[in-house]
């Protein structure tokens, strides 16, 4: 009996060792998702990026992901689990994972971390973000041309700089076309709740907005817009399937190139911490085809996009006032990145009180 047990133990040890050895052959790149990888929005965009990474570097790495990880204490456990399971590079893909990522990164100095849309870095923790606001500026211009009433509805998630920046970019874009343009903001206080997002869309439409944009993750608002016969913008992924005659365009997150670039650097031993913030010109975000709009509006949108890509146009360029009318940017002056990343004020023209 003793012999048998010993034999079993040895076998187990050998199996355990060989499993560890085969895992060591390939570097492990891991992802934490806040939603489901098939949410049709934010998380799906990250997962498409992960698949592109696998396709491109699949012979050298393997990927692993955890989905539906709530922001908060659970996130910390989930990230730690990945770090312990031998992940060399971990992407945490939601703003709310910031503090959890910082904490775990300090515990595992040999593991590299990348946190999306945050602002805290460490020697082994980089941040990456996309200049979504460039797309929102274009959306604002389109909205101002399309809307007959001059009022757009904006379904926002949480009052974090990222979202506030999006609202400001949208309004600034819209006002560059129609100086009297207004938006109504509804905070859903969730990233993901189809029912609530639909309710918010209905409330906005019932109050007379005739174009809708969203900074939440499901296609429910697009669906409501389609049902009520108004136009809308998609978020994070191309949502044209939810509104074939409704979607004007969508900001499409295309993280793949970034994931490949950073993983390659990691494999080459050249990974360094940084705060990456790329935009339309780098291909980290793209605009879904401009549809359901007159040709002249489409031409304007394309022209604006080209100008942003060439660097000729910076969306936040003065003269711009804050909501209370005080001056923010002088004529010709452009905002610096630090102000944008910590944005906690509205620009003139937002008909809402910013939740603090």
């Amino acid at each position, binding site marked *: 009996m003793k012999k048998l047990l010993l034999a079993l133990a040895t076998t187990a040890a050998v199996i355990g060792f060989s499993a560890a050895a085969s895992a060591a052959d390939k570097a492990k790149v891991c992802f934490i998702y806040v939603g*489901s990888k098939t*949410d049709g929005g934010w998380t799906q965009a990250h997962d498409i990026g992960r698949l592109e990474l696998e396709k491109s570097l699949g012979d050298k790495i393997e990927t692993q992901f955890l989905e*539906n990880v709530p922001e908060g204490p659970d996130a910390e456990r989930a990230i730690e689990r990945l770090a312990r399971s031998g992940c060399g590079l971990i992407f945490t893909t939601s703003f709310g994972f910031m503090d959890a990522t910082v904490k775990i990164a300090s515990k595992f100095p040999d593991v590299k971390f990348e946190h999306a849309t945050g602002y805290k870095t460490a020697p082994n923790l980089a941040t990456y973000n996309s200049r979504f606001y460039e797309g929102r500026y274009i959306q604002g211009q389109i909205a101002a041309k399309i809307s007959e009433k001059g009022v757009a509805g904006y379904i926002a998630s949480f009052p974090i700089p990222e979202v506030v920046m999006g609202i400001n970019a949208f309004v600034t874009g819209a006002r560059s076309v129609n100086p009297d343009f207004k938006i109504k903001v509804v905070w*859903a206080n969730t990233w993901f709740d*189809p*029912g609530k997002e639909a*309710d918010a869309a209905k409330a906005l439409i019932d109050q007379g907005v005739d174009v809708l944009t969203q900074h939440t993750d499901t296609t429910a608002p697009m*669906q409501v817009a389609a049902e009520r016969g108004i136009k809308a913008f998609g978020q994070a992924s191309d949502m044209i*399937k939810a509104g074939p005659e409704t979607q004007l365009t969508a900001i499409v997150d295309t993280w793949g190139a970034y994931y490949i670039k950073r993983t390659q650097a990691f494999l080459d031993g050249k990974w360094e911490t940084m705060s990456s913030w790329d935009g339309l010109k780098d291909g980290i975000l793209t605009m879904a085809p401009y549809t359901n709009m007159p040709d002249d509006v489409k031409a304007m949108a394309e022209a604006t996009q080209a100008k942003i890509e060439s660097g000729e146009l910076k969306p936040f360029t003065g003269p711009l006032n804050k909501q209370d009318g005080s001056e923010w940017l002088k004529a010709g002056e452009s905002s610096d990145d630090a102000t944008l990343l910590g944005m906690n004020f509205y620009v003139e023209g937002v*008909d809402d009180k910013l939740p603090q």
Partner: protein
Amino acid sequence: MGIFEAILLTVITAATPVVIAALGELVTERSGVLNLGVEGMMVMGAACAFVATQVTGSPYIGILAGIASGALFSLLFGFLTLSLVANQVATGLAMTILGLGVSGMIGEAYVGQPGIKLPQIVFPLLADIPVLGRLLFQQDLIFYLSIALVVGVQWFLFRSRAGLKLRSVGDSHSSAHALGINVIRTRYLAVMFGGACAGLAGAQLSLVYTPQWVENMTAGRGWIALALVVFASWRPWRLVAGGYLFGAVSISQLHAQAFGIGIPSQFLSALPYLATIAVLILISHNRRTTLINTPAALGKPFVPDR
């Protein structure tokens, strides 16, 4: 359509699934079984209803699939807690987690597909009544079912013999057993009714509220339904009132935001829950009436002596 009417319409759509699921749970709890798996059964109903609708092209078959999946799924809960006498709280929580996972698998191929919305059934003449006609007589089948369920459950529990037996099982299973009532069978049926209702509520989500399937699309509505049962002190009419109150406050806060009245949105988002707490305090200040309504054997396992 005036803004008031528009708000009420949205409230009805938002309140219906919670009311239906809560009504089912109310019957389950009246029989003395606490099933915390409402969220899981609801999300199963949503997934199965959506998939069945996409496959057959008929949302009515979708409704049936939603009801059937909820009832079948609750049968698992029944088997574990009633036949194997597993802990009800732990099993219920496990059902929620299992339901969220399994529904994600069932619906995976259908994410992002535009759904088929359940058509409205318009009652001639009645639908022409100003305001009320639009609100009550131009709705979908599930809304009418929800009204029928409220009336039916109220009648069943307090006016029928079978309902009296069910309540006696929930108050004292030993006495009921001694009187010759089949406690386990009664509880199985009550659990399955609860599951069927949760499944129907799920079908409302994926066929009426937002005709699409995404994982976790219930987003906590099952838990609100559970809270509503306690809120209503196990009484169907109070449950309906509570469900619609909750819906009304949730929707009005969105409208208040869109009006730009300048109250912090976090406070407005918390309003439905604050209102619930306020009403709970009002209801429960009289401990005697609360105790009378609470099923005395709630959550207690029953093992018949052989």
